[in-house]
């Protein structure tokens, strides 16, 4: 298993190089640094000196891939590609266009994101599984039918509706929690509870329906029939057998996302004014701050790959029949 993990980590390297090349191409060849400078400084009436100055301040005045004027190794390192793209590999994210250290921002902003993402993951997972098990218990009855119809309806509603509706209902009409913002210490929960709840509600249609199908697949298997035949109650069958075996495919979808949790949700965070990584990214996109977007693309890719490896490992724990070689 150790060998397997090492091999997977090594496989990740070419993928990350690919990600790096794609983002480099997108940000530096499609848009030359001159374009970026012009966009940052305002479209019209930008003098060439202003662009040069802007590029020099941020280190965009180096050559793209190869610096013929430098000596030795610096021929390769004193380039935009090395300074801005390759440096991401040792998590040196550099500075945003407004001069702040991206690495520092990421370290401070991941906590608010986690404060929302972890509760909504845990509560959401237990809610969806409960609903799905209930529907599976009442399978082929009106309860099941109505439940599935509600699920399909719920997944047809735009996520933005849940956010705007929830904010309006809970914060504005009932005045239960603040509309947006983020607090310090113990007071934080008042800001966290609504976005987390909306995160849970927003996914209930699709997830509960998916999990229900997974459980129903298990319910028609032979071992379940055997369990019933030996006189187990339906509850024991559901919790002891169906749930346990159904959890395996559910795990696949969840574990892969766990590392990405601390990036947070773009839309949810910006609607609720939470100073997490999601709203950070969104602000960067709106301000067209390419260095932040670049850093987040790379970080997201790394976390996704970590998630994939974790998924494989969690398989061996959940299902002893699976061996990783």
């Amino acid at each position, binding site marked *: 298993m150790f060998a397997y993990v090492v091999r997977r980590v090594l496989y990740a390297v070419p*993928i990350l190089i*690919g*990600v790096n090349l794609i983002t480099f191409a997108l940000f530096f060849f499609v848009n030359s640094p001159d374009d970026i400078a012009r966009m940052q400084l305002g479209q019209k009436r930008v003098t060439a000196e202003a662009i040069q100055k802007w590029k020099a301040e941020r280190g965009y005045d180096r050559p793209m891939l190869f610096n013929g004027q430098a000596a030795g190794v610096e021929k390769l390192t004193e380039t935009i590609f090395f300074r801005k793209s390759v440096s991401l590999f040792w998590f040196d994210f550099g500075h945003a266009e407004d001069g702040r250290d991206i690495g520092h921002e990421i370290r401070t902003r991941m906590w608010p994101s986690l404060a929302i993402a972890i509760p909504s*993951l845990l509560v959401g997972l237990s809610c969806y599984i409960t609903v799905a098990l209930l529907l599976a218990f009442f399978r082929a009855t009106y309860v099941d039918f109505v439940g599935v119809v509600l699920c399909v309806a719920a997944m047809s509603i*735009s996520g933005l509706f849940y956010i705007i509706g929830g904010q309006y209902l809970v914060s504005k009409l009932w005045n239960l929690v603040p509309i947006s913002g983020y607090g310090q210490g113990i007071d934080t929960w008042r800001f966290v509870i609504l976005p987390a709840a909306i995160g849970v509600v927003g996914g209930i249609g699709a997830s509960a329906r*998916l999990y229900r199908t997974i459980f129903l697949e298990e319910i028609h298997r032979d071992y379940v029939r055997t369990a019933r035949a030996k006189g187990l109650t339906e509850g024991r069958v559901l919790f002891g057998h169906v749930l346990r075996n159904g959890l395996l495919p559910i795990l696949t979808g*969840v574990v892969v996302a766990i590392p990405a949790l601390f990036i947070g949700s773009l*839309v949810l965070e910006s609607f609720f004014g939470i100073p997490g990584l999601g709203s950070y990214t969104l602000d960067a996109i709106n301000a067209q701050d*390419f260095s932040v*977007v670049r850093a987040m693309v790379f970080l997201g890719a790394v976390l996704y790959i970590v998630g994939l490896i974790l998924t494989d490992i969690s398989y061996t724990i959940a299902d002893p029949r699976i061996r990783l070689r």
Partner: protein
Amino acid sequence: MPYRHVLLWTDALVWLLVTCAMVFAWYVAQHEHLRAPWRKVTESRYGMSALVILAVFVAIGLLDSIHYRERLDTRQASGAANYAVEVLSLFDALAGRLRNKPERTYSAPLAAYAYAKENVTRPDGTLAREFPRLLHGGAHLDDPAAQLWSDVLRKTLAGAGLAVALWIALTMLLAAWLAGRREQAFGDTLTEIIRGRAALPWRPMLLSAGLVLLVACPLAVLSGYYHVLGTDKVGQDVLYQTLKSIRTGLVIGTLTTLVMLPFALLFGLMAGYFRGWIDDIIQYVYTTLNSIPGVLLIAAGVLASQVVMDRHADYFETVTERADVRLLFLCLILGITSWTGLCRLLRGEALKLRELDYVQAARAFGVPDWRIISRHLLPNVMHIVLIATVMDFSGLVLAEAVLSYVGVGVDPSMISFGTMINNARLELAREPMVWWSLASAFVFMFVLVLSANLFSDAVRDAFDPRIRAGWSLFLPFRSRPALVVAPRS
């Protein structure tokens, strides 16, 4: 000619898609083995009711996909005609009543008075601060305060009456057509349809057609006199905007899949069929693309395309053409981020198919590889492509709204559900609240997505019930579902 036809890029692709769909339908109708799963789709009650509603949306979208520019009275020095900068569509021409009656600013649904108080000069010369009458909404009434609701009720009932008449006519026509086809008595056919005994679920389909008529007819009657869903900040009719949004949603939902399809098919089949280093390279490409967070790749792509378009601003004659190219870019980028799921499915299927006896036999006879792929593999994965197309649709329509909020969606000048929601979400804070733009965008989007979901379920159940959209909520940057094969069938 008093107008000049304008062929936008998305129009061309939409009509190409329509042509392909028609050729495909004709081809399927010729082959019994292809017809069988479709027959199963047509037997699904929910699927077919949803299809009726979808057809209405598609009809609106197609009407909105024929564009032209009106000729102006002035002429250029050379004598060539001048054409208006504004690009109109056939739908605009039909909905002229909605488009040409702007108010000054917000007005509530079915209102006759403006949203805010203004200084008004009374007929007797005194100045007063009151709610002025709207320019067009309820302008035919003498005393709106007393007459408004009775007038609205009367017009709604007239619309409903029209709807019932149309519905009865539709039912009769259907029964007459079926009776003619089956050489059966008209009365028997009608009873069969009404009792729900016909082979096809005509009764639910007629019911949903009736529902559509019941909503559409009163809306059509009322919209001649009022702004049924109110007006927005610049006084534009919200109903008109909502109907215009349908085309944007449909274009994004269908063209994205169309754009990615050739890549997904080619790479997926090649990877599965050739295996070896080709498989390695293709797998590497899609794993790399897949590991970039979707929204960020889209954002990066859209920002990049924005710069390119700013640099070549002179390529576009009108704002509409520019917005249209941006929409096409968005479809392309969305396609690039989403072809990986389909590609993986196709690769898996191709791996399975290449071991089957008939493919082995073809190889043994020395049939060239490309021929095996096109003759033996391609037809056998088409059902996956079909399912992917219909299942992606609803996710893409929803994704458009989110992307517009993030600021990397369609051009701000293009009417879409996303831009409507984005413009309207701050208006909730107004007093009194402006809720109508938001509500109508959400309701129409809900109906569109719900019917698409129901229809795609029917298609999936008929073709391959194992494939489903695994919506992973917990992947924060993945705004749309990824297609997966059910674990352990």
